[in-house]
């Protein structure tokens, strides 16, 4: 790949929620802005913009990552999942999203997209989490509404339902 000039736009392509997408970006463009402005995927929220708050967390190549600490050019060729890719079909929520609704695990919702993406990754690799490890894991996200109790309850509930679903399958 040749050196990309600072002043020019460059074509960036990656897989987003299972479909190839492409748009142009300068090398300095953050992935958060690329998703929101260039691809019109505004479900990924921008909070602190320096990696502390967790609001912009998405999945890059199977692991949770801060979109604000990633350049769009770095994501070229990657496999990315955002909040828009969680629901299995229009009008239907994922098991985790449904659990968040049942447990009132959000109020303003600003942090929610990042937390859902983080937990989706975590529950896939750790189907039987305990409360202490979940609390440690969610230390990477700030929520100023809920006090986290309902988020933990929703995550534990979702984990149990996902285990049951896998047992039946």
């Amino acid at each position, binding site marked *: 790949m040749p*050196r990309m000039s600072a002043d020019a736009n460059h074509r960036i392509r990656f897989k987003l929620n299972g479909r190839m997408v492409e748009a142009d970006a300068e090398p300095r463009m953050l992935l958060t802005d690329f998703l929101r402005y260039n691809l019109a995927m505004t479900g990924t929220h921008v909070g602190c913009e320096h990696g502390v708050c967790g609001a912009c967390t998405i999945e890059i190549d199977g692991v949770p990552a801060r979109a604000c600490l990633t350049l769009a050019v770095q994501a070229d060729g990657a496999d990315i999942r955002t909040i828009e890719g969680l629901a299995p079909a229009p009008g239907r929520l994922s098991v985790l999203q449904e659990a968040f609704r049942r447990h009132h695990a959000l109020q303003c919702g600003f942090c929610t997209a990042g937390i859902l993406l983080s937990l989706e990754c975590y529950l896939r690799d750790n189907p039987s989490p305990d409360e202490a490890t979940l609390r440690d894991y969610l230390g990477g996200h700030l929520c100023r509404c809920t006090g986290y109790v309902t988020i933990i309850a929703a995550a534990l509930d979702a984990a149990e339902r996902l285990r049951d679903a896998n047992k039946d399958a």
Partner: protein
Amino acid sequence: MKPARFDYLRAGTLAEAHATLAAEGEDARVLAGGQSLVPMLSMRMARPKVLIDIMHLPQLAKIESDVNTIHIGAGVRQAKLLAWPEIHERQPLLAAALPWVGHAQTRSRGTICGSVAHADPSAEIPLVLLALKGAIHLSSRQKQRRVSAIDFFTGMMSTARNDDELIEAVEAPCRAPGHGYAFREFGRRHGDFAIVACAAVAHADGVRLAIGGVADCPAVRDYPDLTGTALDDALDEFAWELDARDDLHATESFRRNLVRQLGRAAIEEARRCRA
């Protein structure tokens, strides 16, 4: 917060990365996981002319170990080292410290060598390398060299790396027979920058204690086998020597007190682990 303009080069070979570093000098910065560098760019504390992305060089993404040392390449992400099945057996101090490095959501992208290159005064990985007497492997177009951790960290976010060099790997010694290791940290929130972090290595002749988060770069002391008030006095002296400062997060006297308390706890645990 948006970064200033820079060129981006995804290095296809190590030689390409070296050539760009040689040509651009201090105007070039190596980009690995980006977890320290990208915020620096966004805050415009760093304004390089070109970023050299080294994450597509498979030869750098390796953890290699023999009975004596672990070599961690520049492309190895923190989560990968933490998930390495041999880490607890090979080097318990690294295994104990890694969960304190950022959050799971940043360890997934951040690299071991990137943290070493950034050299934040409160960073855990430089601290552990100093406690273990680890080393940093640097390379440029001209030559390769190995710098011990004690010589590498020269001040706040400054290191012995030359402008035309990149960190190819860091090296940590494996667990030694009869050695005990312990790590302690205090921060406001797990995953935040440490207010004080301690790494202790106990061995037959005494104990080695490294402290991060207080001075401009991690500091280390070697003690004979002190106990009781002699140990308290030594820790008190170390705490005062670190030149702690007040800031938004903690007062200088609180930091000194943490050095005394966490230092003692780390030393005692390291000694228990020897047994």
